């Protein structure tokens, strides 16, 4: 704060002016009108913390006793895929609602609190889909049979090159389409969240083998998953260090340079790390062929789950065709 008069702010002990200033660095974010400027660094720290929280929470739920937690990850992966495809093919909102109910019931049987599950699923993706699809329910954006007329002009209204038609109305097609999209998104997200919550992530990645993913890709996925947390930690430390060295808000330009420099540093560190990891792997006998110690066993209930999911998927598609 070079613009401040030191005689007013500097305490008699000879501390630098900024230390005795009216705006201590620790409450920087609370200074009105300054919040947005330093928020890029803050937002990144918060994003990283949220990602860590998500993963820790998932591991916690995955280690609880519950219906889906006990199942073989391969059975779960295949079931998820079948139900996802069914949810993608179905064309009746009612059937989608049924699939949603089944998914939520499975979450309940796996001892996931309903409130937590609903929050995790609906915040952000289906709500966002709802916002995106909202304009399309009006006849101005997408033509259709009017269901509820909001405003009748009585004559054609033109806005420059665009015609708005003679009235503004909510259309039947628009409303049904919006319901289908939001429900479909919600069912798909629910299924994915359910799988991620009830399976240890490292097991889930290994289970992808059943979907014909080559072994070397599984190895890469597992290693990526492991090193994401190391790099997240590194990035969080860099940003926290930056945050704690700042005594005033930084300009967007400075933040951009900082972000790019951290990305560069992180890239250098990642590269060095990969060399070290490679050396460590080679010294333990790695020759390019990945091996896994973890063996999965499909038992009765696992087959049952896969069968039940397949039956549910087939029933959903069948019922959809009957209704439609």
């Amino acid at each position, binding site marked *: 704060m070079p613009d401040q008069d030191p005689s007013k702010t500097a305490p008699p002990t000879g501390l630098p002016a900024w230390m005795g200033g009216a705006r201590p660095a620790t409450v920087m974010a609370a200074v009105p009108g300054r919040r947005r400027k330093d928020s890029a*660094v803050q937002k990144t720290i918060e994003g990283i913390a949220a990602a860590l929280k998500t993963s820790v929470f998932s591991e916690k739920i995955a280690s609880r006793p519950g219906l889906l937690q006990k199942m073989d990850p391969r059975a779960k992966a295949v079931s*998820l895929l079948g139900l996802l495809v069914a949810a993608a093919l179905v064309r009746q909102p009612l059937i989608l609602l049924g699939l949603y109910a089944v998914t939520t019931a499975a979450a309940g049987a796996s001892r996931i609190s309903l409130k937590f599950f609903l929050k995790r699923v609906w915040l952000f993706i289906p709500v966002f889909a709802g916002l995106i699809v909202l304009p399309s329910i009006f006849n101005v954006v*997408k033509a259709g049979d009017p269901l509820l007329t909001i405003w009748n002009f009585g004559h054609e209204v033109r806005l420059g090159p665009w015609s708005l038609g003679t009235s503004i109305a909510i259309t039947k097609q628009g409303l049904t389409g919006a319901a289908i999209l939001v429900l479909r998104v919600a069912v798909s997200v629910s299924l994915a969240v359910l799988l991620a919550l009830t399976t240890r992530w490292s097991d889930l990645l290994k289970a992808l083998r059943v979907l014909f993913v080559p072994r070397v*890709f599984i190895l*890469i996925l597992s290693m990526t998953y492991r090193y994401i947390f190391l790099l*997240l930690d590194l990035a969080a430390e860099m940003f926290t260090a930056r945050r704690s060295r700042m005594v005033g808000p930084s300009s967007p330009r400075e933040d951009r340079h900082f972000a790019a420099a951290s990305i*560069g540093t992180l890239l*250098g560190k990642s590269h060095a790390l990969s060399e070290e990891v490679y050396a460590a792997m080679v010294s333990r006998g790695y020759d390019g062929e990945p091996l896994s110690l973890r063996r999965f066993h499909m038992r009765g209930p696992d087959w049952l789950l896969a069968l039940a999911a397949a039956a549910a998927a087939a029933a959903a598609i069948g019922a959809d065709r009957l209704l439609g």
Partner: protein
Amino acid sequence: MHIPDGYISPQTAGGLWALMVPVWYAAGNRIKRTLKARQAPLVAIGAAFTFIVMMFNVPVPGGTSGHAVGGTLVAVVLGPWAAVISVSVALVIQAFFFGDGGILAIGANCFNMAFALPVAGYYVYRLAAAGSPLSSFRRWAGAGFGAFAGINISAFLTATEIGIQPGLFHTANGTALYSPYGLSQTIPAMMLVHLTVIGFIEFAVTALAVAYLQRGHLELLGARATAAGGSRLKPLLVGLLLALIFVPLGLIASATAWGEWSPDQIRQRFGFVPRGMSRFAGLWQGIIPHYGAGGGFWSSTSGYFLSGAIGLAAALGLAFLVVKLIRRADRHA
């Protein structure tokens, strides 16, 4: 940019999976040959790095901020094929664990962000930087423009995939089954924000990061600079061409296999002109006149496929030209 499940039909998603499988196969073979046993740790940590970069918040002049993808940067350092795998792996982890992008849509998201983006970005960079020393300004500027081109090509593909949905997949009375917006709405909406805000972020982050590497880690930029060029790309091209032929066939086949449309309905379905689209016809004119926006042939399904094929052929031709130019520049250097 991440497409969630539900916005695109399983036919579109499946088609893009079919396009990505030969790409992954070719990329996997390529890095196996060039990186040997080292590929797993290098690509895995590259993927982890990509994942982290996507979390960085980068401010834009004017007060907002957004996220970068960073695919071009990874391609500049690891090479385009390692970048294809790295970004794909990051996207798979995002889809399964963090809900960024759908699981059925992984093929589509990987095609847009893990294939088109880094490969286009990389070749623009190579074109701009060909023959220049590692510390030249052409390196960081080229990487920046490559990133800008990559993100915008990727956004255009995303907008196209979402935009063809209402015309292809709707019920008899015109209710959209997936995303309701046509090409004339998705393309301007996506391109407006990507040509400005997101493109700026991608340019700035990539150019500044490469400039940073020039100051501190010059060896990282040099590692891959000489190892590019494609001698064994034939399998990939053949795979892509096969997919291009079979994907539309599969789509038509699946429509009849459901056995619920009479030939008459199919004809109707394939000649459908979305009514909402024609209203906005004046808003956007593609390279092909009335690409999906007017009436008649270009908005019918066969029109979509033909324009898609022409687009892909143009892109491949352009890519071929770029590679030729880079080779020539390298020889002269």
